[in-house]
């Protein structure tokens, strides 16, 4: 029972982080619950392979992989491709280049403070590979090195995904705020 208790001590303190990441990726509370459960079972089975001291990136990496598998199964069974779930379909490269190749019009700046409800909607509009790095950075406060551990992407890719994600977010927010306050400008 020693293995189980040390697993409990090291990993269950990150349960809220795990649930939150799953929820941001699959956008369904019941799915997120299932994903987190499955992830902890997977983590326990692979626990002998964990040698670090900080289990957070390790647990989150398993949650992330489980969530993406979930998304790709859901997409396949629903046979519907939404922007949200496009990841895993045409491949992550094309999603990234698709955004990168958009014309570099000067980005509208944000007028006034950012409303929480708006930022939530704007995050939902982001493709998951950009959404996840922003969540891991702004909510979980992970360092780039840790984000790289969670996503399995090299450090440089983490940096560029964050940069592009933030620019997209800014554009979307600006559009939303314009709509919200048509007379503000």
């Amino acid at each position: 029972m020693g293995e189980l208790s040390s697993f409990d001590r090291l990993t269950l303190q990150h349960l809220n982080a795990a649930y939150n990441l799953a929820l941001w990726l699959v956008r369904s509370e019941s799915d997120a619950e299932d994903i987190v459960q499955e992830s902890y079972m997977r983590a326990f089975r692979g626990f002998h392979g964990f040698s670090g001291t900080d289990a957070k990136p390790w647990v989150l990496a398993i949650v992330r992989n489980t969530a993406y598998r979930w998304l790709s199964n859901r997409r396949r069974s629903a046979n519907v491709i939404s922007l949200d779930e496009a990841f895993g379909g045409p491949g992550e490269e094309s999603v990234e280049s698709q955004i990168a190749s958009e014309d570099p019009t000067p980005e509208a700046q944000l007028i006034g403070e950012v409303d929480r409800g708006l930022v939530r909607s704007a995050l939902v509009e982001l493709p998951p590979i950009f959404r996840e790095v922003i969540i891991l950075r702004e909510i979980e406060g992970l360092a780039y090195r840790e984000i790289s551990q969670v996503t399995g992407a090299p450090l440089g890719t983490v940096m560029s995904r964050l940069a592009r994600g933030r620019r997209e977010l800014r554009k979307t927010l600006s559009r939303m705020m314009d709509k919200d306050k048509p007379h503000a400008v």
Partner: protein
Amino acid sequence: MRCDQAYELIGAYLDEELSGGDRTSVADHIEFCAGCRVLIRDIKRTGKAIAELGRKPAPPTLASQIRSLLAKEEQEHAVKRVVCWRMPPNIWRQAAALAACCLLSVALTWGVMTSRGAVDQLQQEIVAAHIRSLLQDSPIQVASSDSHTVKPWFAGKVDFAPEVNDLTAAGFPLLGGRLDYVHQRRVGVLVYRRRLHTVNVFMWRAPGADDAAPTLANRNGHNLLAWAKSGITYWAVSDLDAAELRRLQRLL
């Protein structure tokens, strides 16, 4: 540094993830670029708003659900470990069976070659000695039907004093005695006659050996009767039939 380059790095600059050279370049750029300063403000505002969203906490039952699943998993794992130990996978069982067969085969062969082989070899030697004695002019070195002649003749030639009986009255006249060499030792031989058949009785000392009832064997048409009595091993061999050989053994 141009604005588009700075755009790529400003986020990392704010996150304090840039190393020396890049950090200085970005810092220099934003000092003179109002647009990038606005970008920084927006990134900070947005980041603050996201951070304020916070985590949506996991349902309170999730932790206990996971704990009970883990406990079940751990238990099944423990059971599986025991089962694995008790019932090795097929391949191991097969390998173990094969190894056991090999060992058994080696042991049996060795046993047969050593024990049965020794008896076999002795029988062969005795039959050969018997036949050789018949090929010679005479199977005996001391010719006498008188046991009191034959018995002293053996003295000093073999390491025991053989029982020598003349059995003429019973139809087994004593021809005499000789020395022979079987079983890697010098042995005494008494030679009896039954009608036209010659019987060689080989004798040697077997210290500590228990008395043994006669056992009959047949080899190339010769009957062999082996027994032990009072520390002496006897082998009688002849082309006489088994029943008559047994009779001689009883008389001796």
